[in-house]
């Protein structure tokens, strides 16, 4: 019997029981739509995390003093501190490091005339821009040597908007904790990122300026660096640690500093989000499985109901496999129909969630293809047993069935 004829017979049988077919299809639709939407959600959050991390600077490495654990309380070690000489040593000796910059923050209010903004002042070196993927929009970046300790700053677009609503901030002065800082450059907008903070709400000033004029300390809380490329984070970390230990003649087995790499952070965050999306996908998969059981159930009913028809078809020459394929086609049509509608619904649901709840959603082509394949497999798997039962009926018994 040709496949086309089988499809016709199957469609006819399905149309004969519209409500029943609709309900079986619905079971699959819900399962597939759930899988598509859940995978889209997981994929969306993964992509969004990755984008934010890249915006932050995908090869970034952060070095901080280690914490001692005393009586279960973590506290910052007072014995080992980072200092300017560490920065210079890393810059001069490290081969896997592209840029290095301290990060010294000062809290306060930035004031220009009647406008003010509660922006943190960050003391950095020029390398910080490339480490964090900032770019200059107008003016210039300060220089580590010539602008050492000078009262200049470079500001982000949020600060421009808040303090200079009329625009053109270059050459104007911001007062921060009563110290005037001349704006010599502005940064290109970077948008909100990482974990919701505004990357454009920044005021950068040379770290020596912060040391000398704001915090009166030579201790550096954090050092930012970036490796020369993706995959070098581990080598770069080892190298930095080696340099820092060597400078201190460090012999203890524990490390004096903590080092975070962007790669590690991405892994930590994505592994969490992967876990969540895996759980959601499994739940959705279970609903698809339940839909499959629905198909199996209805196929059993269908086979029983049509026992006499099966007997007749066999009497007039249908082979077992003709009958088998007839019923198998029915279940596959149900599941594929459910698959197509479910995929469409899943994509639509993803788009709606994206627009209404502003969540990152990304429907992956893979999930669509896999869903479709799984539907086909579901139809075959759950249709197989009832179809086989039908194909093994005895024509005499089947014809006698009332």
């Amino acid at each position: 019997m040709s496949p086309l004829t089988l499809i016709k017979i199957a469609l006819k049988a399905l149309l004969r029981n519209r409500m029943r077919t609709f309900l079986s299809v619905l079971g699959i639709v819900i399962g597939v739509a759930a899988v598509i939407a859940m995978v889209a959600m997981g994929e969306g959050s993964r992509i969004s995390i990755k984008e934010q991390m890249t915006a932050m600077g995908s090869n970034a490495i952060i070095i901080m003093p280690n914490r001692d654990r005393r009586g279960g309380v973590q506290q910052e070690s007072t014995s080992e501190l980072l200092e300017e000489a560490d920065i210079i040593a890393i810059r001069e000796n490290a081969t896997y490091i592209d840029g290095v910059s301290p990060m010294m923050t000062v809290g306060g209010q930035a004031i220009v005339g009647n406008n003010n903004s509660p922006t943190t002042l960050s003391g950095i070196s020029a390398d910080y821009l490339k480490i964090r993927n900032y770019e200059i929009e107008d003016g210039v970046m300060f220089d580590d040597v010539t602008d050492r300790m000078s009262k200049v700053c470079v500001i982000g677009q949020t600060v421009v908007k808040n303090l200079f609503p009329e625009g053109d901030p270059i050459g104007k002065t911001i007062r921060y904790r009563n110290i005037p800082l001349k704006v010599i450059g502005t940064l290109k907008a970077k948008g909100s990122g990482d974990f919701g903070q505004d990357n454009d709400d920044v005021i950068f000033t040379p770290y020596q300026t912060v040391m000398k004029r704001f915090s009166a300390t030579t201790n550096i809380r954090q050092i930012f660096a970036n490796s020369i490329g993706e995959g070098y984070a581990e080598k770069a970390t080892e190298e930095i640690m080696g340099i820092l230990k060597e400078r201190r003649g460090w012999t203890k087995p524990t490390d004096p500093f903590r080092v975070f790499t962007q790669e590690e952070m991405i892994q930590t965050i994505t592994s969490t989000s992967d876990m969540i999306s895996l759980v959601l996908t499994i739940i959705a998969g279970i609903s698809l499985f339940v839909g499959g059981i629905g198909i199996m159930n209805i196929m059993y009913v269908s086979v029983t109901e049509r026992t006499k028809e099966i007997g007749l078809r066999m009497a007039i020459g249908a082979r077992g496999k003709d009958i088998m394929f007839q019923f198998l086609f029915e279940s596959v049509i149900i599941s594929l129909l459910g698959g197509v509608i479910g995929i469409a619904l899943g994509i639509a649901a993803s788009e709606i969630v994206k627009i209404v709840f502003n969540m990152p959603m990304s429907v992956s082509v893979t999930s669509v293809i896999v869903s479709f394949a799984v539907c086909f497999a579901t139809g075959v798997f759950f249709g197989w047993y009832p179809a086989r039962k039908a194909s093994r009926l005895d024509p005499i018994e089947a014809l006698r069935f009332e």
Partner: protein
Amino acid sequence: MNPILSIQNIRRDFKMGDETVHALRGVSFDIYPGEFVTIMGTSGSGKSTMLNILGCMDKPTSGEYILDGQHTEKLKRDALAKIRSKKLGFVFQSYNLLSRTTAIENVELPLLYNSSVSAAERHRRAIEALKMVGLEGRMNHLPNQLSGGQQQRVAIARALVNDPVIILADEATGNLDTRTSYEIMMIFQELNRQGKTIAFVTHEPDIATFSGRTITLRDGLLKKDVKNENVQDAKAAFEALPPPEEFEE
């Protein structure tokens, strides 16, 4: 002339728990091309079992069954299905038409299981078969829009469509009133005149008078196998019936 169908010492036992029921205890006969044979017997005589074996839906426990020159005793399910598809035509007591399926689609059904027949050829042969039973005007009617006699005629057309070597009828008039039964017998006689070989199982003696030969089974054995010298004409018998009363049909 070689027989179209030949059975030799056919036995068929059924195991019912500990007991063995001997439905057929060694029956032999031949049917030749162009014969119209009725197989008679009371219920329990083995005539249904005989028909199932002749129809290749059941296999004998022992004995030989040669259909159109081919031994069938050792064949597997699929091979038997192929024989049913190519060589046999069935007419059942309860018509067994597919519901919500038009007359012509019902007639086309056996050809669907024969991949060598194209869709166009299928359609053409179905129309031809429906013409032979006088239903060319009802091709697109559904079974529930047809009378019992018309439904049985569709079933006969379905049995003809694959041009079988023999038509097997199982109490084909059992669900019909006398007038309609005779109408159906007219069709069978006409088909027989055109050369079709027919084996017709019935328990009604008047039906048997329309055939040329009657085989009678009793308790699984062949009791009588007689040529009917005085074959009745179904058309004449039909016309001799009193006219139907007003409220009928």
